[in-house]
């Protein structure tokens, strides 16, 4: 019944899109597993890995869009939630290595043996169980988001101030995780994973399963987001974005709305990070770099903020461009990325999803100009 309720909350376009995501997540792994390598429809493992990565990025973009596009909170620190989820997964994967590490210590991961740890730090306990790691993946980013949001929203830190605070947060976390005595692998991070849930991480079958899991996570994210955005709660959220003070005067507790969506978005980012780590095989502090978080914001901006399909499309397009350009013209990539930031904000404020509307508006304005001189230009909300 709940599923039916959720399903009806989505528009037809979004339903189709969610099914498309699921279809990609099912068909590609199947094409990899069932078809022989000689078949023209066989999908090689590296494509699966790439698509799996993009799906995780898309989920992160969706999380950013949920707070930015629908609630007006521009977070420049979502990369931190993503990385925290990734670290939780990394800790689980490290504990699964067991005595197969270079030093063969059954309890301590290699880097701890290397750094002369005598016993497991307290926060590593429990991570040998998957269920515990799964809870932590949701809990750790949520708690951080709750703590930050609680302070920030209550004292009405908004707009660019909030952006700068979130950026400082991820910067501080990056510095902290670079330290060896954090007990989380220092600047090398965690790598050399062996198996997940008993399956070898490197195997094609595991890759196919992870790609599928990422697609399911993204579809679930889309459904949940659509349910929130489409509900009365979502309407209030959009109203907070457009006129926060007015909502407050009308008697709504604005902080509560913001806090809820911020925490939910952080948990989604954590899941994305957790699925990302076994697919790329490494997690290190550079994931906290402020640039990563801003890039995630760009995916949303390219696809179209305030829509649910846009961020997914944006994440796929930008990352496809990145994969292609860093291979073909490596020194050109940063120029392209930088130019994209500028072009999108100047010319495509509503992203690709808003492109059609923009063209239509313009042609209508032109028609209107023919009949009535000095027509007002349509203003774009920030």
């Amino acid at each position, binding site marked *: 019944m709940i599923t039916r309720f959720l399903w009806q909350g989505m528009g037809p376009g979004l339903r189709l899109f969610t099914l498309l995501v699921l279809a990609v997540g099912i068909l590609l792994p199947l094409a990899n597993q069932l078809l022989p390598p000689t078949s023209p429809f066989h999908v090689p493992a590296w494509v699966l890995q790439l698509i799996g990565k993009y799906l995780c990025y898309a989920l992160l973009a969706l999380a950013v869009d949920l707070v930015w596009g629908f609630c007006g909170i521009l977070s420049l620190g979502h990369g931190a939630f993503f990385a925290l989820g990734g670290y939780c997964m990394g800790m689980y994967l490290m504990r699964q290595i067991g005595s197969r590490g270079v030093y063969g210590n059954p309890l301590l991961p290699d880097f701890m043996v290397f750094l002369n740890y005598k016993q497991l730090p307290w926060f590593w306990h429990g991570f040998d169980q998957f269920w515990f790691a799964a809870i932590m993946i949701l809990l750790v980013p949520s708690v951080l988001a709750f703590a930050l949001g609680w302070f920030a929203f*209550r004292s009405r830190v908004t707009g660019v101030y909030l952006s700068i605070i979130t950026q400082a947060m991820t910067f501080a976390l990056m510095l902290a995780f670079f330290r060896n005595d954090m007990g989380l692998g220092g600047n090398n991070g965690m790598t050399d994973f062996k198996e997940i849930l008993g399956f070898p991480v490197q195997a094609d079958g595991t890759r196919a399963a992870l790609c599928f899991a990422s697609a399911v996570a993204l579809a679930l994210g889309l459904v949940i987001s659509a349910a929130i955005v489409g509900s009365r709660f979502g309407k209030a959220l959009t109203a907070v974005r457009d006129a926060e003070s007015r909502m407050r005067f009308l008697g709504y507790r604005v902080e509560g709305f913001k806090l809820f969506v911020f925490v939910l978005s952080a948990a989604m980012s954590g899941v994305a990070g957790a699925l990302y780590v076994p697919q790329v095989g490494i997690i290190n502090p550079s994931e906290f770099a402020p640039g990563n978080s801003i890039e995630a914001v760009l995916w949303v901006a390219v696809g179209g903020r305030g829509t649910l399909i846009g961020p997914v499309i944006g994440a796929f397009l930008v990352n496809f461009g990145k994969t292609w350009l860093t291979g073909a013209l490596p020194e050109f990539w940063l120029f392209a990325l930088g*130019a994209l*930031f500028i072009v999108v904000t100047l010319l495509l404020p509503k992203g690709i999803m808003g492109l059609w509307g923009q063209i239509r508006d313009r042609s209508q304005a032109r028609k209107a100009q023919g009949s009535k001189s000095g027509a007002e230009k349509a203003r774009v909300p920030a």
Partner: protein
Amino acid sequence: MFLFRSLAVLFSALASLTIAVAALAADLQSLVTNLTAGSFGDRETAIGALASSGDARAAPILEALGAGQLYVRTSDKLVVIGKPSGNQLTLTEAVSGAAAGAATESELERVRVNNRLRGIIEAAVGSLTLMSPDARVRRGAADSLFKRPEPAALGPLDAAIAGEKDARVKQAFTEARAAVVLASDATAQQKIDAIGIVRDRGDREALSVLQGAANNAKEPEVKAAALAAAETVRQTLAAWEAAQNVWYGISLGSVLLLAAIGLAITFGTMGVINMAHGEMVMLGAYTTFVVQEIIRTSAPHLFDASLLIALPLAFLVAGGVGILIERGIIRFLYGRPLDTLLATWGLSLVLQQAVRSIFGSSNREVGAPSWMSGAFQVGQINVTYGRLWIVIFALIVFASLILLLRKTSLGLYMRAVTQNRPMASAVGIRTPRVDALTFGLGSGIAGLAGVALSQIDNVSPNLGQGYIIDSFMVVVFGGVGNLFGTLIGALTLGVVNKFLEPYAGAVLGKILVLVFIILFIQRRPRGLFALKGRSVE
């Protein structure tokens, strides 16, 4: 008769003098020979004897012994000093100083010393060089005696104090004498007086001398005095350390001020978030690099003026780029701060990559002119000229900016546009022009900061990135739209950072400061010195 007698006296005096000199030489000869014989214990006695002879020629011999360059020639048992030249050693006679040919290592036998003896030798050389004509050598001798007091040096020291004319050297001698007294068997009263002198010196060496005296003292009153004095010195040292931290903090704060003050204009007064601000700093640093390269190749004699030449150029380059940015991008985004943030971030990526393509991604070398290198002591604080100039420069930039905003018509327009744009426009101020100039000014100041930062940081395409978050923190902490807030904010954060560093380490200190600011902004979202009234919304 008188003449005869006086001549006889003169002759006998001369004769006795010659005999004395000969005896002295013979004496030195035997002392030196003693050095080469017997066990390490015997050698120690011989070194002491040589040191107390007070003979100036003994110093180079002892130095050679300490450096392992004193040899005995196997063929004729002559004691020689050997300086290596090529495969052979050039020999000089130890006693007379005359050249004695050359020899290979196998024809000689080295006079061996151990670490203990090396310490004794150093002290002995110290007491011997007390009479050196060079004041710097004399002070060095006093210092080495202070660190390794030798009771035997008391006599030479007293003589040296009596003959000394340079007040600073005399002070050093007196302190060394006090340390020597503490190490000798002097009376309790003498020792307590000496403790007073050592206490007034008040540095780390004085502390270790006092602790040594407290440990070795037999008389209880001396021990008590030494402990009390050591405590006083410890307090003095702590005070100096705090002062040193304050100085380092001010130095760091002035760097933050330079990096943030341009931002205080663009963000603080215009409300434009410029994430490419760090890249303006980087452009300034690279301008300095280019200026220095040109000077190196075409006009090397101008090198000392290179920074002065670079300053206006860096201002123009960064300011010009700033005006281009404002006209090309930012003016379309007024009223959309989040979009401005994203667009300027993209711009910063482009600028970084452009500089990387032109200059390469490795660090570039920017030299320091002669007037910026070197250091001097203030009490126990070591002040480098480079840091001092940066502090002064930051304050000059700050003061000129304040003057510009308060006393010039451009400053008046800027403040007017900031406070009420439509009204300013209505009275005839061309607001777009003022916007461009304001942004150019902020960027130009960032360029000036780049010239200063090129002296203390690596000039690389990533130079600016390291400062952007810190700069925003300073501006937000100090209060947006308030230049004095930026000054106070920068200095406070600099000093706090440096005080946290010894306890928490550099990285953790930085993290703590960031956390502190995040919490601080929660309490006072508008910074330390908030603007009041409706204009802030």
